[in-house]
């Protein structure tokens, strides 16, 4: 399956969920509607696309200029040896998107990381809490509004036991 036929198939397969198909420095980029992230990625995971591996999930903060967060999923198809980038925009005011838990097992930690760093809620995530920082951390450090050298309040000594 060449890249053109693949993109045609994705167009017909995803239908209205697909907002645009583009390219950036040679990488194929799909943009999907935020409401359709889970269904679109579930479709891409199956044949004939067969993007069986969720390589990565991250987020980019465009809140200041464009009022949105952009979720960036990287998929990899082992059988066809191609990568695919899927993007979806969520409003910065209340960023939320459907969780991928149940589709890929690493989505659990990846989504916790994005929640921790950006404050994006993943609806349907079984246990959405911070991953790299700790309970009681204030703010979401990778948001552009979070100052680089902001100090966090100290955690008080625990008095148990």
């Amino acid at each position, binding site marked *: 399956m060449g890249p053109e036929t693949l993109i045609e198939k994705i167009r017909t397969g995803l239908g209205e969920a697909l907002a645009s198909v583009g390219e950036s420095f040679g990488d194929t980029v799909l943009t999907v509607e935020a409401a359709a992230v889970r269904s679109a990625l579930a479709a891409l995971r199956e044949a004939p696309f067969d993007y069986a591996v969720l390589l990565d999930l991250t987020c980019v903060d465009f809140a200041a200029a464009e009022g949105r967060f952009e979720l960036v999923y990287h998929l990899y198809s082992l059988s066809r040896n191609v990568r695919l980038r899927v993007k979806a925009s969520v409003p910065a005011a209340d960023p939320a998107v459907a969780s991928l838990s149940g589709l890929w097992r690493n989505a659990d930690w990846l989504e916790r990381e994005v929640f921790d760093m950006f404050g994006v809620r993943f609806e349907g995530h079984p246990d959405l809490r911070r991953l*790299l920082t700790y*309970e009681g951390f204030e703010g979401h450090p990778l948001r552009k509004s979070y100052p680089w050298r902001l100090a966090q309040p100290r955690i008080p000594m625990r008095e148990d036991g």
Partner: protein
Amino acid sequence: MGPLTRIQREARPESMLVNMGPSHPAMHGTIRVMLELDAERILNAEVEVGYLHRGFEKTCEHKTWFSLLPYTDRLNYVSPLINNLAYAMTVEKMLGVSVPERARLIRVLMSEMSRVSDHLTCLAAMAMECGAFTVFLYMMKAREFLWDAIELTAGARMTTSYIRIGGVRADLHSDWRASVAAAVAETRKVLKDVAGLLDRNIIFLGRTRDVAVMSKEDALSFGWTGPCLRSTGVPYDVRKASPYLVYDRLDFEVPVGERGDNYDRYTVRMREMEQSLRLLEQVAALLADAPPLQPGPEIEPAEAVRRSRAVRADSPVRLSPNLEGSERARLGGLMTRDKPVGVPPKEATYTTMEGLIDHFLFFMGGKGIRPPKGDAYFSVEGGNGEVGFYIVSDGTDRPYRLHLRAPCFHVVAALEGLIKGRLVADVIPTFGSMNMIGGELDR
């Protein structure tokens, strides 16, 4: 009391909760594993990471494209050169520059030495934690030879920053061939000794064979890459799947395992090291020795600056020892000439006005390396798997967003499931075979 963790909420009242870590003598790396135990049996487990989180991605947004390179050394600190490479190649992809042949070969040489040292470290720690201290000492010894060879050229053992955007920082040291050959010979010997000590060792087999078995399907669902994925039988290697540098011209195999247990993760790493040693020999044969530089009177930088006040100083400048190999005559084969993305030669900076201007234009805020607007993902095969950078550029001198796809993040995410239902003692070899590296996991 702080908020309860998941395992504290779910634990049965009669079972015992035990912390392993964050600082546990049998676990290298700072990670907390909470266990719910029924005697020795693990009923439930929870892994807490982030103890080494230092805001790598946030920091990079505030550094220039050039000056954030040293931070990448500190990701997977056992194979820093591969992190340098992944970052440099992602930026090169955005800039659209091509790297000279000699620099590519040197990059492969450095990558493979790093891969071997990464695998050696992982297996050494894993074996030591299972009680095989001899293996640890043997492997650390071999790693010393590799790091000596790296240090000779890069000037540092771990924080190398040697692979730069557009090429490499300096040419190979004049003694590189002997030191690489010594490292290869020494590692071969150690691999043979270690195979003799462990391969059929009943204690080692008991702790690794059929312990923490990962299926192919689960490994893919967890996004595993690298030796851990290959141990389950999936022959995915970035060097073969999407060859970069000169890997398509080199002859090597991708070893795979069958069962996906701890023992397979050990054997895959052992066999991969043999392949990497083969690659080192092939690359060494392809790399010619650098021609000697023209002898002549050399002057110190201060003297050059003093002389150039009156008239252009035309004697070669004697550079400080740690810049050996980065002379202007050598840079042609080491740095791309498509665009000025490397530090201008020091001889020019110290002796000519134009050179000094070039220097300032490279380092001044708002100048220097500025990839065009857009985003790119590029990955290379690291010691742990696919090391990928996703970078968003807004056309300025700093990245708008930089994200690392850390291979061991996905591997460690599967730890909870792998140790559930097993014994406490199984945590140690399972965790050891995963090669968790806090620097890249927690970023």
